[in-house]
């Protein structure tokens, strides 16, 4: 919400900054957290594509006023049909 002078209300700014900082804190203070997240992302993604081996990168990144989960996963080729385990 904007106030009369077009500035963000400090309450909303505080909330955003907190969400940001906590995303990084929670990932940093639990060493397995990002490992588990990375493993699970890779497991699901590999049901759709053949992953190209080297250079997999999954991390949190602050982008302007929010946190993004950024995944860079080299793709060797797409599978003919997704989710083969369900067929």
């Amino acid at each position, binding site marked *: 919400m904007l106030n009369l002078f077009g500035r963000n209300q*400090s*309450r*909303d700014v*505080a909330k955003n900054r907190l969400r940001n*900082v*906590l995303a990084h*804190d*929670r990932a940093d203070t639990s060493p397995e957290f990002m490992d588990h997240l990375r493993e699970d992302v890779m497991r699901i993604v590999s049901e759709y594509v053949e992953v190209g081996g080297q250079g997999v990168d999954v991390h949190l990144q602050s982008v302007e006023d929010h946190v993004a989960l950024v995944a860079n996963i080299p793709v060797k080729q797409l599978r003919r049909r997704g989710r083969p385990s369900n067929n």
Partner: protein
Amino acid sequence: MGGWPVGEVIVITSGKGGVGKTTTTANLGVALAQLGMKTCLVDADIGLRNLDVVLGLENRIVYDLVDVVEGFCRLRQALIRDKRLEGLNLLPAAQTKDKTAVTPEQMRQVTDELRQEFDYILIDSPAGIEQGFKNAIAGADRAVIVATPEVASVRDADRIIGLLEAAELPPARLVVNRLRPGMVRKGDMMSVDDIVDILAIDLIGVVPEDEQIVVTTNRGEPAALTQGSRAGDAYRAIARRIRGEDVPFAEIDDRTGFLSRLRRIFGQA
């Protein structure tokens, strides 16, 4: 929601300093004793003794927590009985030693002994996440986290919640301290809902900013001892919730004001 069983040890903690742990401990102790509970407050902040002065009991200390664990006195000899209020007791911290003078195991032994005699044992944790904090949570069955509506305080509270989870304590309950409902309405302070939403833990109380806390702390008479302060009322409400009473949060809820209701009608809240 059921109350917290008697014989339980409750640690009051926050991570960040200066958010009102000691004031909360003192006032909850008073409020529980007023409900007829035999209550013992333990100052676990060794080397920076504070709870005694907040309670106005600083002139009555003979022995302290470190004397007890080092065997210089019996636990019973170190306890100070508050003459103003039946059932309220203090186990003071040592002022001259440091936090390494007590181990978590010794702390556990002390709290186990206190459990035999008291309905509730409240541990006033030092700030930080080091040994003093580890000592404070060692013998605890539950935790109350105190946070003020500020980024740094909520951030530290989140870290503490993680550490309490790792220590396998049941989910902590939150006291939002020093809330200024007027500032929340103007959009200049995070609301109780904002904080609860971010921390994802259950609320046990909201204490409004109250100048009376400064006055009562000056005098060494916790606000909850006498009627007529908003903070004292809030602490008494928390004590009743600990006892299992369903006390509504409505009186200090920052969303009940006329202006904010108008805002909600117009869809801006």
